[in-house]
């Protein structure tokens, strides 16, 4: 028998260490130390109910276990084989106690559709993909369905583009299918540029065939025989696995002429991006594939009408494609049964930032931020306080405590001033200054703006400069008004999605954290102690023991003081790097 004790930061903060020791002690007292093994595990992602103990092999799941409960667990469960009822998880809906972790709703929070094969199959081995229903959807569509039926199925599924815009995929296909042209193209957008989002890379690295399969289906639906994958050159592993997959698929006749005897031809080529975020925008992406500067052009015409080389082109994102085969394998109705009314299926999020379980998760649409952050993500790192979560990357906004129970879908996120984006989710804690965060995103936008239209080229630069002024304590209240007006105008007048959404990080932080802006502007104070010009490091005399650790680590030698004497910081030399604070073991350095 095994006892798994959660050793994640959250549980540790609620004394899982002591619980672990107590369990061992109890077992020893009972002489069971050789029969029952106590093991610490990584975070279960259920920190709200920690500490957690799981019994193997019967999968009993105890929650909110205190060190004092060790005795009872050993005495009852281990010795007598009876569950400790009061420590069982209570289902919040039907109020029933659930003993077996498999039955807990918690396990159903994540459903893997797009990531179904990631981490399960060998991506370089087509056999494993074939064994996992691979290319069966393609076979079914190509040999048993008309393009019209296949498009209808896609429309019925309610799948919306996962790249950020959320345009219904089936409708996009339908538009391209209705334009007559001698050639059409299917493009897979794998130019994942959102800092902090890496689901596309993971899918291509873990399940490249699913994307190829979906591209063939897309091609069949719209009458295209050419597929292009536009991928970031910074993803060498994904490129390599894609190349292997393409080679294998060709060798098996799953790409190429007369696929599966259907008479339909389709082949795929790889094109490389070269580091331009704006190329995530489909018109810019198309120009980039044509060997041009990746500058967006006005829509309409939409790529589905006139795209690559002026031909009708469907551009879909990697995650969107990864969903496609499942929809045909399981049917549209099944897919439409997951998620919310207007956002069907699941969404992959890249959880990052100040959160315990950094990683990729896939959850049904409609799940709340709270469930994602606290139940799946395992809560905030180091037991700090949750402050904000940024969704949608540079196009998105910062959401707060009050949005935690909002069901996540395309429309809800938009309504609260953020965006689904490609699914980056960056969690921030009390140590993050929201003005600085807004500035960080603007810095990104300024660097990534293509420069074609004035509001984005100059406006974002000015936004950044205004934010810089604020973080330096040089701004006045009028600047805040100007800031807001500028945001509105950039949003209203920019040529493409990049500019139209670039003010979101500023607007959402202004809406949700106005007090922080005011503190910077009126009191010349950064409440989170981040903005260098508004803080200073000082040594607290009561706590300083004169260990010299700070002085030794100061890169500019601005800390003076003899051993065992009080140290002082020369503010005129201090570069505010924070090394002294990091090194001090006595809480004697503080940000003022």
């Amino acid at each position, binding site marked *: 028998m095994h006892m798994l004790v959660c050793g994640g930061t959250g549980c540790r903060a609620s004394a899982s260490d002591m619980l672990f020791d107590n369990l061992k002690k109890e077992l020893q007292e009972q002489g069971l130390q050789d029969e029952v093994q106590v093991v610490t595990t990584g975070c279960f992602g259920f920190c709200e109910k920690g500490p957690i103990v799981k019994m193997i092999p019967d999968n009993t799941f105890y929650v909110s276990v205190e060190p004092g409960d060790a005795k009872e667990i050993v005495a009852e469960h281990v010795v007598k084989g009876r569950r400790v009822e009061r420590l069982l998880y209570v289902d919040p809906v039907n109020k029933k106690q659930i003993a077996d972790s498999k039955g807990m709703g918690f396990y159903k929070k994540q459903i893997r559709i797009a990531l179904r094969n990631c981490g399960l199959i060998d991506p370089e081995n087509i056999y494993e993909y074939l064994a996992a229903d691979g290319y069966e959807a393609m076979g079914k569509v190509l040999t048993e369905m008309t393009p019209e039926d296949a498009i209808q199925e896609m429309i019925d599924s309610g799948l919306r583009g996962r790249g950020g815009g959320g345009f219904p995929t089936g409708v996009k296909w339908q538009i391209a299918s209705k334009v007559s042209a001698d050639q059409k193209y299917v493009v897979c957008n794998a130019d994942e540029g959102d*800092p902090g989002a*890496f689901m596309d890379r993971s899918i291509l690295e873990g399940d490249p065939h699913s994307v190829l399969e979906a591209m063939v289906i897309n091609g069949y639906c719209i009458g295209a025989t050419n597929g292009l994958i536009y991928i970031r050159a910074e993803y060498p592993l994904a490129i390599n696995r894609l190349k292997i997959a393409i080679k294998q698929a060709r060798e098996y006749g799953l790409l190429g002429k007369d696929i599966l005897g259907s008479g339909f031809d389709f082949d795929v080529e790889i094109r490389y991006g*070269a*580091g331009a975020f704006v190329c995530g925008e489909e018109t810019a992406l198309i120009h980039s594939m044509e*060997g041009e500067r990746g500058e967006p052009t006005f829509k309409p015409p939409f790529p589905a009408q006139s795209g690559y080389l002026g031909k009708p082109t469907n551009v879909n994102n990697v995650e969107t494609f990864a969903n496609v085969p499942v929809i045909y394998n399981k049917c549209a109705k099944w897919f439409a049964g997951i998620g919310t009314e207007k956002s069907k299926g699941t969404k992959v999020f890249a959880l*990052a930032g100040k959160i315990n379980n950094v990683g990729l998760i896939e959850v049904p649409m409609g799940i709340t931020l709270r469930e994602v952050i606290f139940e799946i993500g395992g809560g905030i790192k180091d037991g700090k306080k949750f402050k904000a979560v*940024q969704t949608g990357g540079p196009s998105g906004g910062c959401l707060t405590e009050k949005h935690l129970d909002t069901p996540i879908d395309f429309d809800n996120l938009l309504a609260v001033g953020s965006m689904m984006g490609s699914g980056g989710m960056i969690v921030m804690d009390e140590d993050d200054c929201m003005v600085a*965060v807004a500035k960080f995103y603007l810095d990104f936008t300024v660097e*990534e703006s293509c420069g074609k239209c004035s509001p984005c080229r100059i406006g974002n630069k000015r936004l950044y400069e205004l934010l810089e002024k604020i973080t330096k304590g040089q701004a006045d209240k009028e600047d805040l008004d100007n800031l807001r007006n500028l945001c509105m105008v950039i949003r209203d007048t920019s040529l493409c999605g990049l500019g139209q959404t670039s003010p979101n990080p500023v607007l959402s932080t202004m809406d949700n954290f106005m007090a922080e802006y005011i503190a910077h502007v009126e009191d010349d104070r950064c409440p989170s102690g981040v903005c260098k010009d508004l803080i200073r490091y000082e040594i607290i005399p009561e706590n300083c023991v004169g260990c010299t650790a700070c002085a030794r680590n100061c890169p500019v030698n601005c800390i003076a003081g003899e051993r065992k004497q009080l140290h002082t910081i020369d503010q005129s030399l201090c570069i505010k790097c924070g090394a002294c604070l990091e090194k001090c073991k006595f809480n004697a350095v503080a940000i003022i």
Partner: protein
Amino acid sequence: MTSIKLKLKESEVQQLREVAKSFNNAPGELINVLHRAQEIFGYLPAEVQEVVAQELNVSVAKVYGVVTFYSFFTMLPRGRYPISVCTGTACYVRGAEKVLDEFKRILKVPVGETTADGKFSITCLRCVGACGLAPVVMVGDKTYGRVTTDGVKDILKEYEEAE
């Protein structure tokens, strides 16, 4: 942007011509050709761009326009050990800026430049998708995860010793 004057050898010009030819000398393949050219030379000096322009029958100005648009392309030779600090959001909130500052402080060069001995160059890049390891630093093809300011010295030491 200035570029280092470079004389190409006939063999190198020939190599570029073959690259262009392998892409059917099609203007639409400009970016693919530039990728290959950068693989060969490590960077894209003016002379290389001129040959590419000639081979693909596009104007040099256009080639330069494309090269300067994409951050992946560079006209300056990188250090023997190019250091790239990820400044994506996940790395940012986990202290990438401090790590970057530390590199700049120790090597005494700003971002985008190479140390006088040609050994190290510092660049920033946007998210390598290894957010779980934030903050991330790449030296050449090698990725370092969970880098701290203290760790910077150790990383550099590894390469100092390599020579």
